[in-house]
Structure formats: structure tokens, C-alpha cells
């Protein structure tokens, strides 16, 4: 959740002239730490993808391309496609539900805004596994949702909702909705209300005012929110396991299972790298689109 604006501070640049060894104490500790504990581990995984697995995890030092070839098997391509589809659906649902929420919050008085925002984030503050498990209680055949639907006479027999892909989508949406609302709110809240009023005063109906003024300006926030939801939704493995009943598998489960069940570290590493490549592409796409939108906004 980086809601920062990375504008360089102009005045400081002057100090460049006498850098010498000055940056070392500031940059070296953190950079070394991150090189050792982030870059090397990721590099190591990339390295592992070209070797054979050992029987109990680890690897045998024998070069092979099998792991990358295995990725192209329909079985694994299918899981990857399904995960992308699932993450996409969840992202769109989050946008559909989160946009009106953020829009409404941005329109509140400052005092209520804070309260409303905290209320969005608060569910994050208790253990996520327990929150996820609560959905099992809700979606169960004997659960609250079925009881309510039956009580209202909408259905006669309980419908099985748990252990389905739909249940996984609900679980993921629940988990990541706040990550959509926050960046959307941040961009909507920066909108100058006078702009909207001006548009309305100039005779635009509220929908037209929304479409021509609010919507384009909130697009960067929406894109950020989409990435915030898409990225973790695609790699989550706990929700498919707990409320998907192990029947629907996502890439995250595959990776976890390669490490902990199949003990095929090289293939697990290959899957994880592919997942990362896809997610990085999504992020690059997002920043490209978002830059174009902002520039387009400035030019137009």
C-alpha cells in the first residue's frame, strides 16, 4: 500500500556535488540486506528452475529444461488460466462494489470520512484465517445464508455454495475489497468538488458531470486498486484450500503443493517465477495506462 508521490525535492539535488563516500552509510546496509534476502533468493529460484528435483526437496545438480516444458502441459496452463480468470473476476467485482463505496465516502463530511475509512480497514485487524472461516459458517448448507434464503421462501432446499469456485470468489473479494476502496478514495477525495459543481452549473446532468469529470480523474486510483486486488488474489492459496474444499486449485496452491506435498522445488520455483512474471506485467501495464491517462488528462 504505497500511497506516496515520489516527487524529487529539487533543492537537495545540489548536494550531489560532494557525494563521495557519503551515500554509503545510508544506502549500503539496506541494499546489502535486500540483495541477500530478496535478490539472491529470487535469483536462486530462477537458478533452480533449470535443475532436477531431489527426492526430498532440494535439487540434483543436473541441468534440465523439463520444468519449463512441464509448464506448457494443458493441465498447468489450465490452472494458470483459471487463476487469471478468478483474479480478474474478483478484481472487477471489487471495482463494482468498491467504487460506489469510495465515492460515497469521499462525499461525507471530513469527520465522518475518517470514521467510514477506519470502518473499511478495521476488518483487516483481526486474523484473516478466522474471517475466512466465518464464511464457512455463512455459506454452509446449514449456514446463515441458506437459512435466511429458506426463511424468506426464496429457496426450498439449501443450495450448496461452499466448496465451489463461487465461494472462493466471495472469499477473495471479502479479503481484498478494502485494498480497492482505499486508493479509489484517495484519488476521489483529491477531486475538487467545485469542478463537479461547475460542470453541473454549466448544465451537465449529474451522470454527465460524473462521466466527464469524476470518472477520468479517478481512473489512476481505480487502476492502482485493481493491481492491489489482482496481485494478491492471484497468488492466494489459503482461501481455495479452506472454502474451496481443495477441489478448485489456483497457482498459489500449485506452488505451495510443489514445495510441501510433491517436494518438487524446481518445478515449484518455475511456477512461482511464471506467476511473478505475469504479475509484474500487470503492474507494468497498469503504470503505462495510468501514465497515459494522467498525461491525456493534462493535455486534454
Amino acid at each position, binding site marked *: 500500500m504505497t500511497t506516496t508521490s515520489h516527487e524529487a525535492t529539487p533543492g537537495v539535488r545540489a548536494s550531489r556535488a560532494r557525494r563521495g563516500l557519503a551515500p554509503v552509510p545510508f544506502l549500503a546496509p539496506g541494499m546489502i540486506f535486500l540483495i541477500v534476502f530478496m535478490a539472491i533468493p529470487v535469483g536462486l529460484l530462477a537458478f533452480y528452475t533449470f535443475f532436477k528435483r531431489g527426492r526430498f*526437496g532440494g*535439487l540434483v545438480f543436473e541441468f534440465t529444461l523439463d520444468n519449463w516444458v512441464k509448464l506448457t502441459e494443458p493441465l498447468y496452463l489450465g490452472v494458470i488460466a483459471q487463476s487469471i480468470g478468478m483474479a480478474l473476476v474478483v478484481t472487477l467485482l471489487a471495482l463494482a462494489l468498491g467504487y460506489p463505496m469510495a465515492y460515497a465516502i469521499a462525499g461525507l463530511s471530513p469527520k465522518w470520512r475518517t470514521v467510514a475509512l477506519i470502518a473499511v480497514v478495521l476488518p483487516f485487524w483481526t486474523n484473516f484465517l478466522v474471517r475466512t472461516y466465518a464464511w464457512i459458517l455463512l455459506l454452509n*448448507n*446449514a449456514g446463515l445464508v441458506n437459512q435466511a434464503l429458506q426463511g424468506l421462501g426464496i429457496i426450498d432446499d439449501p443450495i450448496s455454495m461452499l466448496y465451489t469456485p463461487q465461494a472462493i470468489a466471495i472469499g477473495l473479494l471479502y479479503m481484498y475489497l478494502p485494498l480497492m476502496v482505499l486508493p479509489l478514495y484517495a484519488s476521489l477525495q483529491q477531486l475538487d468538488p467545485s469542478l463537479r459543481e461547475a460542470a453541473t452549473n454549466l448544465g451537465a446532468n449529474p451522470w454527465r458531470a460524473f462521466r466527464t469529470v469524476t470518472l477520468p480523474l479517478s481512473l489512476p486510483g481505480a487502476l492502482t486498486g485493481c493491481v492491489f486486488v489482482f496481485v494478491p488474489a492471484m497468488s492466494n492459496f489459503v482461501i481455495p484450500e479452506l472454502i474451496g474444499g481443495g477441489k478448485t486449485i489456483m497457482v498459489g496452491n500449485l506452488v505451495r503443493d510443489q514445495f510441501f506435498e510433491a517436494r518438487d522445488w524446481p518445478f515449484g520455483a518455475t511456477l512461482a517465477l511464471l506467476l511473478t512474471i505475469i504479475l509484474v506485467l500487470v503492474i507494468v501495464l497498469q503504470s503505462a495506462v495510468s501514465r497515459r491517462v494522467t498525461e491525456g488528462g493534462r493535455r486534454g
Partner: protein
Amino acid sequence: MSYPFRRLALAGAAAGLLALTACSSADAGGGEALDPEADLSEQTLTVSIWADYYPEDLAAQFEEATGVKTTIVNHTTNEDIVAKLTASADSGIDVAFVSGQYAQALGEQGLLAELDKALIPNEKNLYPEALELAYDEGNVYSEPYAWGTTGLCYRPDLTGFAPTSWNDLLAPKPELVGKTTMLSTDRWLAMPALKALGYSVNTTDDAELAEAQAQLIETKPTLLAYDDTTFYSKLVSGEAAMVEAWDGWCNYGIAEDPTIEFVVPDEGADLWVDTMTVLESSQNKEAAMAFLNYILDPEVQTWVAENILYKVPNQAAMEALDPALLESYPTLGITVDELFEQEVIVDLGEDSLKYVDLNSEVLATN
């Protein structure tokens, strides 16, 4: 190869070699003699057992009996604990509970300490059969903790009939679709399909395994879920009508709903043994051996059996079992002879990977 990449590769290879040599030197240290006079109260013990598979105050009781400060940690499956045992040189665990085929594999890898029988006199209480199990003949690396078989655990009021075949699970009647669960851990995923097809649970034949895999993929859409840990509560709540279950674990369901029944299908099933092993990396081997010996004490193992409702391979302990329990939990009454009609699961060396692949492919099929 670019320079930095080559350097990384070299570093990786060097570190790998180091890890290998570290492993083999640990192997060499396997035979060191244990000190029977060691002061146990100086040692501490960390034991990893499946959750809910031991009496709650086991650690406290053992500590009281021997003075060894004991901590029990939990794992959920064999895979879970083996991954942790193999991920680092010293996992910090002294005694690990794993199924027989894993004791065999870990033993062959040099990760287990040979048991010092002088420190485990209570081994004599075991059934003679329990010393000749195929995965570890003579109990070199492992002592059995509990044993049993796998079958169908079901609610007659929901199924409307008494299942007799694995096919009742693999190709359920329409009214049971979405009301069954299967185990998905290790060899128990393939077992029902292999048995239904008339094959061995230890087969390494590719064609037979492929046939079993096809059957399992066909069965998958008819399942409510794969479940290794809470299947009995799904029966109790009525979400499921019939589940693949270990005999002892079916008893947890029977405890809450006495109408639940257990059957070993006609095609037969496996004989599994959950064992206690001592890690080679353990610094507290005397205390670890004392722990194994403590469990094999008839009184203790009766107490264990009455707590976990699983059969134990300890003759004296089984004979001392409260008859009322046998009444309520018929699976406790399965005799040793009946048990040995089933097939013992053994480790298959490199061919074990075939099962690993079968599992991941069945589970990954959406």
C-alpha cells in the same frame, strides 16, 4: 553465461556440496553409543505429532515420569512434517511421528537415528506382528504408535444403504453426488481407486497408475471436497453422507453421532502404521528413546488408545482396553489377523514420485 550468473551458479554449487557433505558426515555419526545412565532431567524434548492424536496432557505426564522437559508441537500431514524435517539441517525436533512408509524413506535418507533397544525394553509388549512390518523390519528406525486400516465412514440414515465397495465412493449413486469426501494426502488418494481396480496399493506399474488416475479425475466432480482433517465433522453436520476415512478417525464421528458406521470395502484396503521415530539431528537421543519406551508401556498405551480411539499395536494395552469402548467403537475390535489381511503400505524409493505426481495431477485438474 554472464559473469554474475556464473558466480551465482558457482556459489550455489559450492553451497550444495557443503550441504551434501554435511549430510554424509551426519550419516557417519549414526552409530554412536547412547549413555544409558544419562541424566534425563538435563535434556529437553520436542516431539511433533499429528494434531488431536495424543492425550492432551501427554507432555506433562511424561515430564512427571522422567523429568524431561517436553514440548509437543503439531503437524497436519506426513508431507507437512517431512517438508519441515528436510528443509533445514536441524529442525529442532527430537521425535517425529510419521506413517510407516515415511519412516522407511527418512531412515534410508539417513535422517533417523537407529533405535537403541537397550533403552526401549517396553518393545516386548508389542504384538509379534508389529516387529515384522514391511516398511521397517525389526523396528530399526521406528516403533509403532497406532495402526489401522482405511475404509468408508458413513451415515446410514443419509446413504440409505450399506456401502460394500470402493466404487460406492468412486462412482456414487446420483443422490450421493456432492455428499462424499476423499482423503488427498500421500498414498491414500490413490488407494481406493487402486483397490477398486484390483491393483496393489504399492504398484509402480505406469499403466495401472494411469488407470487409477483417470478414475480419480472422473470421481473428482462428484465430491463435496477433499478432506484429510475434518471429514468426520462433515458427516456429523450432515454435509457429507459418506467419507473415505482412517478407522480410528471415523470414531471421532461416532463419538458425536453413534449411528455412524465404518466398513472396509470388499476389495480390501491398506494396513497403515503410524510410527515414532528419533531424528539423527537430535541432541537429546536418550530422552527421545525414553519417550518411545514410555509410550510402549502398556498402561500408557492403553491410556493413549482410550484417548485417541485408535487401535495400538501393543498386545498388553489392547487387552486392558475398557470393553465398553469396544462396544461403542467397533473398529477398535478389528483383530490383528483381520488387520493383516490388508496390504502394508511401503515406501517405493524413486518410484514414490509416481504417486506424488499422480496426486498433484489429480488435485490440479479443475
